[in-house]
């Protein structure tokens, strides 16, 4: 008996194409493979990946197709490779997994069992986005993974200020690997080494070296730096580096998604190109437009579980002490805001009516201005709140963004000898400010929301962060609070947000909520609704004491 077939399946140049599919099967096909455009007509095309092979193999059991023997073999091999990898990695992740003996670290040092599991997962797949919480040792895991001849030499790309820390505190401390930190953007003859440390700020100059394929593996530390993809110079360089370092590609970040969920696409593209299909396939399958050319992931939990099933990502969370999060609304000085209204009106008109370039520029300026006006309009009230803490002798890390806001805080809180750690200060001035704060010479460190990445040491002196202005990215707040909530902190950390019900704050809070919700779904799918720990009792007590002292 001849078997009924429902079209042809052909492999061609990295794609599977389905042709001559009857209409009712085409409907089934599109509903099963969301990355196929609903409006497209045959032939339908799907990027060849092991999981697509597995899905297609299943689909053609129900709707048999004409397929050549070599293509069927390729499809079956892809499916088997998907299943074998899934089974292998699942075995590694079992609680009673016994990893093979590990050697390569200095005497007396070895990765912890959870780190050994991640090392094995990364080696099994040759690709991994490791999203473990801060404190679980992503760095040690990455060094363990590359610490074998077949992965060397390796390129490690890090944030500019962390290059020497990687060399001295990690590579030299844990391993006997020879390490060279790359200087500058201009290529030179590289000395012999096992590990080459690049900075995100200099990789763009080294693309020709990357293209020679001398690095067998690559580690992108804080890979969210590459979330804008190859449209940036560093993103394009990273793509070339990743492409030629095929033995092992790892990304490290507890917070890979800073904004909307679509940022995961360029990151996964570096780890395993094509794993989420082509960009347009990814957008169709997983996203919906949110305006301004940005995309929101429709079901972040679903994307999160999908990535886990591919074993492209691994995340373990630390069961640490929760942050005491207090959100206290402060007043909004309307008259302060009104004084800037004329400029805002002019910009708003340009946003609506200007040329393309003018519109973009004006929109950015308007956003900056709206945030600045909001910051200024609540600055005195933020200062008043911080005063209560300072008068009780509590060291405070006060975060903001605009110079105009800092000026008000400096004036209102001048008696507490504030020191500054913002974009305006030189590295030496920042070091002095940090030293003064940690030595107890002052109880107030005013910090820029985005200046504190990698800053260590404040946790020994301070456990209270006040966010006097808001950033557009929830991860910026998280990293700022992470200056205090890190190893060495002995007290409960309190994060106090002081939004206002005016200006841009309500809008930003809405956007922050959506972004954070997207990120949590993808990184921690099915984790359920988290209840926030918020205990205002201590702050209320301080406020009472403050008022009592004032009245006396």
């Amino acid at each position, binding site marked *: 008996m001849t078997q009924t077939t429902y079209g042809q399946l052909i492999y061609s140049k990295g794609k599977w194409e389905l042709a001559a599919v009857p209409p009712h099967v085409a409907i089934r096909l599109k509903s099963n493979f969301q990355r196929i455009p609903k409006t497209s007509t045959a032939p339908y095309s799907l990027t060849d990946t092991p999981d697509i092979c597995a899905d297609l193999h299943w689909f053609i059991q129900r709707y048999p197709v004409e397929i050549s023997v070599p293509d069927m073999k390729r499809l079956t091999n892809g499916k088997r490779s998907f299943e074998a990898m899934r089974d292998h990695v699942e075995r590694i992740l079992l609680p009673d997994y016994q990893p093979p003996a590990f050697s390569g670290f200095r005497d007396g040092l070895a990765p912890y069992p959870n780190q050994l599991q991640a090392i094995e997962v990364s080696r099994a797949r040759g690709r991994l986005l490791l999203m473990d919480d801060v404190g679980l040792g992503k760095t040690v895991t990455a060094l363990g993974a590359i610490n074998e001849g077949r992965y060397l030499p390796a390129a490690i790309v890090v944030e500019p200020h962390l290059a020497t820390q990687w060399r001295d505190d990690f590579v030299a401390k844990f391993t006997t690997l020879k390490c060279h930190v790359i200087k500058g953007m201009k290529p030179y003859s590289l000395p012999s080494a096992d590990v080459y440390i690049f900075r995100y700020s200099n990789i763009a100059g080294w693309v020709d070296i990357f293209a020679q394929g001398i690095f067998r593996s690559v580690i992108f530390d804080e890979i969210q730096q590459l979330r804008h993809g190859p449209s940036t110079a560093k993103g394009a360089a990273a793509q070339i580096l990743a492409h030629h370092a095929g033995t092992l590609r790892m990304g490290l970040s507890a917070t890979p998604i800073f904004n909307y969920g679509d940022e995961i696409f360029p990151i996964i593209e570096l780890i395993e190109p094509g794993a989420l299909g082509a960009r347009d396939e990814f957008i169709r399958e997983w996203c919906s437009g949110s305006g301004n050319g940005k995309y*929101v*992931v*429709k*079901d*972040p*939990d679903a994307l999160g579980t999908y990535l886990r099933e591919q074993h492209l990502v691994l995340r373990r969370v630390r069961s640490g002490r929760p942050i005491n*999060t207090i*959100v206290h609304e402060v007043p909004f000085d309307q008259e302060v805001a009104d004084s800037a209204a004329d400029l805002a009106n002019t910009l708003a008109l340009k946003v609506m009516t200007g040329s393309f370039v003018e519109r973009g520029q004006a929109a950015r300026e308007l956003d900056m201005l709206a945030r600045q006006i909001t910051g200024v309009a609540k600055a005195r009230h933020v200062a008043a709140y911080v005063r209560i803490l300072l008068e009780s002798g509590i060291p405070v890390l006060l975060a903001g963004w605009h110079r105009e806001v800092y000026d008000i805080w400096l004036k209102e809180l001048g008696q507490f000898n504030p020191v500054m750690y913002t974009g305006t200060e030189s590295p030496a001035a920042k070091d002095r400010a940090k030293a003064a704060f940690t030595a107890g010479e002052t109880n107030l460190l005013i910090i820029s929301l985005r200046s504190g990445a990698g800053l260590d040491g404040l946790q020994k002196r301070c456990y209270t962060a006040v966010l006097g202005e808001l950033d557009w990215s*929830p991860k910026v*707040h998280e990293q700022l609070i992470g200056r205090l909530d890190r190893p060495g902190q002995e007290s409960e950390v309190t994060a106090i*947000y002081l*939004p206002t019900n005016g200006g841009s704050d*309500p*809008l930003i*809070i*809405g*956007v*922050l*909520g*959506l972004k*954070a*919700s*997207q990120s*949590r*779904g993808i990184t921690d799918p099915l984790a359920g*609704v*988290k*209840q*926030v720990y*918020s205990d205002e009792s201590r702050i209320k007590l301080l406020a009472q004491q403050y008022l009592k002292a004032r009245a006396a």
Partner: protein
Amino acid sequence: MSTPQEIIAILQLHRFPLTSEKQCQAAIAKALEDAGTAFDREYRLGEDDIPDFRIGSAFIEVKVGGSKSAIFRQCKRYCRYEEVTDLILASNIAIGLPATVNGKSLWLLQLGRGWL
């Protein structure tokens, strides 16, 4: 019976999913259950007027998207009904609301705040 302030205080301390309204509603229902608050889902006030939750005479409408004017029109419609004394708009949209409409109290629960 919980007051609107008490309901908001409970819900404000949760991080509800904000991409899908259905998932958000389900999560709010779970939070209310966990808090021991009795409620009805999708109580029918009228033909097309079905707020997402009823807790006594306080009603909750959940909105994670949509135009501000459409949301406010919906709120005004709900406030026409006698059963309603308080309406809580649980939303991620930056929207200003009057304190009362038709003598009914309007409350805004900013869902984004829980994510700070």
